[in-house]
Structures are given as structure tokens and as C-alpha cells.
């Protein structure tokens, strides 16, 4: 199953970015996808979250069908903001953080919906509503489990990560 997902996920990420944002994506090899030094895996919450600008966003959707688990999209906030401007056709000054967060959730929803439709065209999968939070890093330590498929992509010279984690 993980090998099936790898090829399908690359295809789906390319399709979604080209159709919705008119952007091409480059799949990064494992060696190219390391975290920049000094990045912290700490997730910021509460008052601190409100004060500091987010560095990254992480969107998570649960899936249940032939297999069950979670699909997570990690994306730099700057890139997410550029995508939201492109997606919504608005000026950057008119864009709120909540709109960027909403767009990232919808992006993950499109990736998950298309991916799992490919993996089971007949019955499909049940998906949960996306939950998107601010984080301080690209989630390097997440998705490294043997039951996970993790892919990194270069978009507009920034790196985003998609991981599919299976529940045993």
C-alpha cells in the first residue's frame, strides 16, 4: 500500500498545484528534504501563537476505508500566503491569516480527496474535516515511522511536506 500511495500522491500533488495555482512542483529526493538547522519541532499555542507570526502551517485529515490513518500537509506560511493570494485573486494586504489557514485546509482536502479517490475508485474513503494549526517547523520528526509515506516537494523555491500515516 505505501508504494501505491507514493506514486499516486506525487501525481495528485502535481495535478492540484497545476490546476488550482498554475504552479509546477518538483518532487525532492530524501537527501534534499532535510530540515534546515536550528528549526524547532515545538508547536506554539495560546498567547504566544497570537503574538508571533507563524513559520509553518500543518493541516491534518483523518481517513478511513481500506486502511485508516492521517494525512498531513506541512507548508511554510509564506508559501501558503502566496498560494492564497493566487487562489483567491486578492491583494496580499487584503488577506487575513484565517483565510490562509482556511485555504491550507482546503488544499489538504483536495489532496486527500483526490488521493483516496485514486486508491479506491469504487467505495472511496471517509475523510474528517481538516484541522490546521501553526507550527514552528516542517514536521521533520513526523511521518518517519515505518507505517508512513512521506514526500517533500519544491514549490516556488520553498519546501512543503506531505505525509500519510497508517494506523496499525
Amino acid at each position, binding site marked *: 500500500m505505501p508504494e501505491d500511495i507514493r506514486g499516486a500522491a506525487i501525481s495528485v500533488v502535481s495535478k492540484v498545484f497545476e490546476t488550482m495555482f498554475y504552479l509546477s512542483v518538483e518532487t525532492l529526493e530524501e537527501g534534499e528534504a532535510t530540515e534546515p538547522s536550528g528549526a524547532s519541532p515545538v508547536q506554539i499555542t495560546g498567547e504566544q501563537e497570537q503574538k508571533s507570526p507563524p513559520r509553518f502551517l500543518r493541516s491534518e485529515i483523518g481517513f478511513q476505508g481500506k486502511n485508516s490513518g492521517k494525512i498531513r500537509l506541512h507548508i511554510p506560511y509564506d508559501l501558503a500566503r502566496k498560494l492564497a493570494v493566487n487562489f483567491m485573486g486578492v491583494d496580499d494586504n487584503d488577506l487575513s491569516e484565517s483565510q490562509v489557514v482556511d485555504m491550507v485546509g482546503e488544499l489538504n*482536502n483536495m489532496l486527500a480527496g483526490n488521493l483516496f479517490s485514486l486508491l479506491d*475508485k469504487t*467505495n472511496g474513503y471517509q475523510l474528517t474535516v481538516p484541522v490546521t494549526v501553526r507550527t514552528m517547523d516542517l514536521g521533520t520528526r513526523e511521518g518517519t515511522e515505518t507505517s508512513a509515506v512521506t514526500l517533500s516537494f519544491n514549490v516556488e523555491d520553498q519546501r512543503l511536506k506531505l505525509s500519510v500515516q497508517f494506523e496499525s
Partner: protein
Amino acid sequence: MAYNILIVDDSQTMRKVILKAVALSGFDLGECWEAGDGREAIEILANHWVDLILTDLHMPGMNGLEMLKEIQKDEIHRQVPIVLITTEGSEKRIQEALSLGVKGYLQKPFHPEAVRDILTRIMEKADA
């Protein structure tokens, strides 16, 4: 003739993008209402004249399929053409939606031209 539309999607961003795609497509757009789930959509239908519904399936609260079942119970509202715009692509769920009166289906992501084509086809049939 301008058509009043109702866009049902839990993502405010997606509702704006769908509206933009409809406007760019050259579709003769009258008034537009937005709902975040099926329950809000049913309330809007009860208070406004709607010619066309564009809806997602996957929403918190009342989801798209539950909304379609509610609409089917109403003699007037069941006549309103409905188009699915959703990430959902499984044959089972699409067939279920079609059996509940859905007239067209568009999978996200989509190009604005695809929106125009499907809306034009459906409204031509509805007006015939």
C-alpha cells in the same frame, strides 16, 4: 436571464473561489447566497428564490448528502438543479448523490472553464 445561485461549502475561501469561477465563466449571475453547511443552505432556500445550488459533500454539521435528502422532501426545492463541487471522487458516493437528484458533478480542483461548461449545460436543460 440572470440566475440566482446558492454556494454550499464549509470553506469560506472555497466559496469565494467558486463564486469567482462562476463570475469569470460568463454565466449570467443574479444574486448569490453562501452557506457553510446543509442546515444553513436549507434556511436560505426557505427564504430566497434560488435557481441553482452548487454544493460540497464533505462538511461538518449537515453534510451534502443529508442536505440532498432534505431537499428531496420539498416539492418546490427538489426542482432546483444541483451541482456537486467536491473533492469526493468515489463512484459509490457520486452515485448516491445522483440518485438524490444531483444534475452535475465537478471534482476539485477545477478550471473556471469547467464551471462554465457544466453550468451552461445544466441551465439549458432546466430552461428547456
